[in-house]
């Protein structure tokens, strides 16, 4: 016991001296060198500690699968804020694994019944007023989804952080407080983001901020998670806020009202015919 405390204190002292190296630029002001980050190791969930250090792989894997399950049914609200108007849409979402999702609008009344079906990389829209299903042309993947700041591609992409990006821990972020992880696109990956940064909460459980940098390394958009609550046994941020960088007065909020994980969602839910018949 005695040895342990002394060890820790020695470590801390070393960190203290190391930290005296002044921050050289704005980024660094947010970062505390890795070594010193260990100071907050104690805050980490034990599941994320490996060999006395932060187990980054575990953290990333957890965050990636945070909202996922074998199947789920949730209630969400999409709020698109534009300089001249704000629009609020309530949706019910069924998912199965990573590949299938059905999103149906419940309000406002005018849009009620409009649905988006995603199966693997394909997307369809069902339009109740005209009782037609339209397939989103593959070339439209980069177009905005529902007029929001999310693209069709954002929804469809089975975000595989680990496949397309190499990530590493940069350090400790001060604003917000948390672990700063940088994801850099692997050389041959096709995508809009050259790199992006993720700040994960001290306990490694909650993503706080993601900053996306375009291919020119300019900050292009920022996503923030907030309002952590319990959803069916999990602690999750209820609100995701996406803010594009150069479009003034514009942002999109996606808020989970309710989530039921691992409920019974039959395969047949995710079919076009079901889509059309039901409504």
């Amino acid at each position, binding site marked *: 016991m005695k040895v342990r405390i002394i060890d820790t204190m020695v470590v801390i002292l070393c960190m203290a001296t190391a930290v005296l190296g002044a921050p050289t630029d704005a980024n660094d002001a947010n970062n505390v060198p890795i070594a010193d980050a260990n100071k907050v190791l104690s805050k980490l969930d034990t599941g994320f500690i490996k060999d006395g250090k932060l187990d980054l792989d575990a953290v990333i894997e957890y965050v990636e699968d945070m909202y996922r399950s074998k199947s789920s049914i949730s209630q969400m609200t999409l709020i698109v804020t*534009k300089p001249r108007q704000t629009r609020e849409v309530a949706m019910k979402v069924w998912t199965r694994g990573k590949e299938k999702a059905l999103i149906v609008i419940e309000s406002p009344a005018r*849009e009620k019944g409009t649905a988006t079906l995603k199966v693997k990389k394909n997307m369809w*829209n069902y*339009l109740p007023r*005209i009782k*037609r299903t339209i397939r989103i*042309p593959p*070339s439209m993947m980069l177009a905005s989804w529902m007029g929001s700041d999310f693209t069709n591609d954002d929804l469809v992409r089975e975000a595989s952080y680990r496949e397309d990006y190499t990530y590493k821990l940069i350090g400790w972020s001060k604003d917000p407080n948390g672990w700063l992880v940088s994801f850099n696109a692997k050389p041959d990956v096709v995508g809009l983001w050259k790199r992006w940064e993720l700040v994960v909460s001290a306990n490694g459980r909650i993503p706080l901020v993601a900053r996306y940098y375009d291919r020119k390394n300019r900050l292009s958009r920022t996503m923030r998670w907030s309002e952590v609550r319990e959803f069916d046994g999990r602690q999750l941020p209820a609100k995701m806020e996406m803010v594009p960088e150069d479009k003034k007065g514009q942002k999109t909020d996606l808020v989970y009202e309710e989530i039921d994980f691992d409920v019974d969602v039959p395969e047949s839910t995710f079919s076009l015919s079901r889509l059309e018949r039901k409504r």
Partner: protein
Amino acid sequence: MQTTTLQIAWRNFGRNTKRTALAILAIAVGQFALLAADGLMRGYADNIRLAITGPMIGHVQVHAAEWRQERAIDLVIEDTERIVGQIQADPSVMSAAARIYAPALFAPEQDAFVAMVVGLQCEIESHEWGLLSGMSEPLEKGKVLIGYRLARKTGAKVGQEIAVVGQAADGSLANDLYVIQDIIKCPADIVNQSGVVMSLDDAQQLLYMPNAAHEIVVRTNQSGQAKQLSERLRQMEGLNGAEVLPWQELVPELVVLLDMSDWVGYFVVVIVCIAALAGIANTLIMSTFERMHEFGMLLALGSRPRRIVRMIVYEAILTGLLGVAGGTLLGYVFVWVTSSTGIDMASWGGSGGEVADMAYKGLNLPLHIYPRLEISDTLLGLAAIMATSLVGSVWPAWIAGRLEPMEAMRA
């Protein structure tokens, strides 16, 4: 003394009818050619101006500020009905039409294609200078017209029920079903390429923008006054903050085209002028020289050389005036005759009349040329010809005046 010279000059006229007639004819032809060339060049330039300020662009356009750059659906001109009414109240405004442009997906079947919804006030646009000019049947509610290229690309057919899906002005998903009434060939190429044309009301309903529009196209009956009109409209209280531009500022690159054809026109007229003047000079010089022995006789009879020169000058002036008068008359007759039907360039081209309107950069140049003249044309012709006539006559006359009568008679 002057009068007598003039009388002699006048009498000379009558005496040598053939020679005089020839000279007058040469001048008349010259002036006519000049005026014809002027008329045609002006007509051609007019056509280009008409094409530019044609259906797509008009003379003045009104937009919400920044709409042209951003093309955002929700950057609209509000209260369209009242504003269009206000614009039409201006005396020089011939027509004002509101338009809606919105990118959308066009789905004849399940597969969707990228297209553009164009909302038009069909009544106004089916007049001569509208986008729907020449359309015989009005566009019914719930029906659309498809640009022929889009139809070809997607296999759309008349009578087919199609879905149009896009983003409404309030951000929601705009969607509705329409029946294809017809496949059209529009003067504006962009509509042919990707246009789904519907009535303005239908478009306003589809895109949740009641009584709003993206663009108001204004046509005036004084086409040279576009800039002034746009100034006046800008002051209108309903258009505070909107962007009001004359066509010169909307398509500066096409203004270059106009300038260039103006210059080519001038060039042609100059050449015609030189040719005409050369012919006139040649004729007059020849004519005067041929009369050498006549002058010799006059000299022998005691005329002063100066009087001979003066006589020739009077003759030249008379010839010139008569010729110019005749030529001007012919010129105006030509313009008057062709101004009703225009000169049909298509049939001249010998392609059997199937020729499509020429498209240049998405505009269509009409194929009929309506020659047009301005007073300055006649006056310039008059000045040039008079100058030439005088020079053409005086020089040989001066030579004649210096001759010994015997030499002159022997010539």
